[in-house]
């Protein structure tokens, strides 16, 4: 491309862009449409937490604080053993340290931590960025439901397992019905 046509092209492109509408979204006036897995803030679903401490240990910033105590449950059957379990006393995430890597969410074996796209929690006091369990629970209610799978995607593991079990049971029942029709005194398939 010669020099002159390049210069003319530059002028033409800028002028054409000027006549078009800008794509800018004016944030405080118009809220952004965030994708479902946006990393805004972490919500805690307390009932699922077993105080296994995996999240706190895996956190690269060490910004998760967990306190707990052990509680003994009396045996439910006579002569049985007493059970002990962990009770959560404190669960806090310091978002002034958090680097939003999401390792805690990934590592939680019991699905107690979730990403929420809420992001407007800036404060003028850094200590308020440590969100205690009540606040983390409140964030939980802002977690959107997971997006649907792609049409051609493999089905989720738990659904696959449930489906397999159901299919097996149906097959068994069908076989039982068949053998029942052939001879009711065969005595098979009643269990």
């Amino acid at each position, binding site marked *: 491309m010669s020099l002159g046509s390049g210069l003319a092209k530059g002028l033409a492109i800028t002028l054409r862009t*000027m006549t078009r509408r800008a794509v800018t979204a004016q944030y405080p006036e118009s809220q952004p449409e965030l994708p479902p897995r946006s990393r805004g803030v972490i919500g805690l679903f307390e009932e699922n937490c077993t105080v296994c401490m995996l999240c706190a240990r895996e956190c690269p910033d060490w910004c998760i604080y967990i306190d707990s105590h052990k509680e003994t449950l009396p045996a439910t059957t006579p002569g049985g053993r007493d059970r002990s379990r962990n009770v959560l006393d404190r669960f806090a995430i310091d978002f002034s340290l958090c680097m939003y890597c999401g390792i805690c969410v990934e590592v939680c074996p019991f699905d107690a931590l979730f990403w929420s796209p809420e992001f407007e929690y800036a404060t003028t006091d850094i200590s308020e960025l440590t969100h205690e369990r009540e606040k983390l629970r409140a964030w939980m209610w802002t977690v959107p439901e997971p997006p649907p799978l792609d049409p051609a995607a493999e089905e989720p593991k738990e659904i696959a397992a449930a489906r397999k079990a159901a299919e097996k049971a149906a097959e068994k029942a069908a076989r039982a019905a068949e053998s029942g029709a052939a001879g009711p005194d065969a005595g098979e398939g009643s269990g």
Partner: protein
Amino acid sequence: MDWLDVAVRVLAVLVAFLVLPLLVGQLEHKAMAHMQGRVGPMHAGGFHGWAQLVADGVKFAQKEDTIPDGADRLIFRLAPGVALVPYLVVLIAIPLGPDGMVGQAVDAGIFFVLAALGVGVLGSLIAGWASANKYALLGGLRTAAQLMAYELPLLLAAASVAMAAGTLSLPGILDAFEWWWVPWQLVGAFVFFTAGLAELQRPPFDAPIAPEEIIFGAYTEYSGLRFALFLLAEYAGIVVVSALTAVLFLGGWHGPWSDQLGWLWTLLKTGVLCFVVIWARVAWPRLRADQIQKFAWTVLVPLALAQIAFTGVIKVVTG
């Protein structure tokens, strides 16, 4: 000339000097933003950020005015004034409309205007020298080299118009103006406008400022109000160069109903040229320092000389 008349003229020039550069600055904010698919300032003042430059001014006024340890303090403080005031002086001599609608009609108007313009560029040079900073010095020297290279085509192109009109007075040139001067002096107009752009160190001729290589050239050490004065000088320079191009090459106040609306024609032509200055900044990348020199000496100077020869031939033939 009575005192009231002088006061009104001086006041009008001062108001133009304070308002027009800000309008150009705001135009640059918005036009550049939209050319890049953005919207630019939207909040200051409420309506599409009209008060953004006022807010900028308040911010600059609040900032600390620092002077480097090794700096030549007097020169360092003086430089922004040297850069800014000449443009105010030039504005006095630029005719706005017919029949003496001009701050002060100077007989050798072109000489006066071009000499004052050159002084304005000196502001950057002494700022760079006085800053005691190698980047500022590099920027200042590039400014000086650019001034040397582009002053010549600027003068030659202006001389061509003066030859055509047979006078050095700006109102005189406009009185002699005919519409066919525009195609006749087209090459001269290109040379004058381009060289003016280069003297202002506006993109694509902003190698003396070049933030990516020499911080901010001669203005590296400046902060607060003094820096704001340099910025204001840049925009005042755009207004002055655009107005001069409009007056010398595009017929200034000439146009339909120029008896009443002459001033509007001058402002309109100046505004369009200001827009072109901004447009060039957005569309084109920066030239290297050596490319800038090469462009001046191998393209603009020969073109300007050819224009002078052409003007002379036509002048002799039409007698």
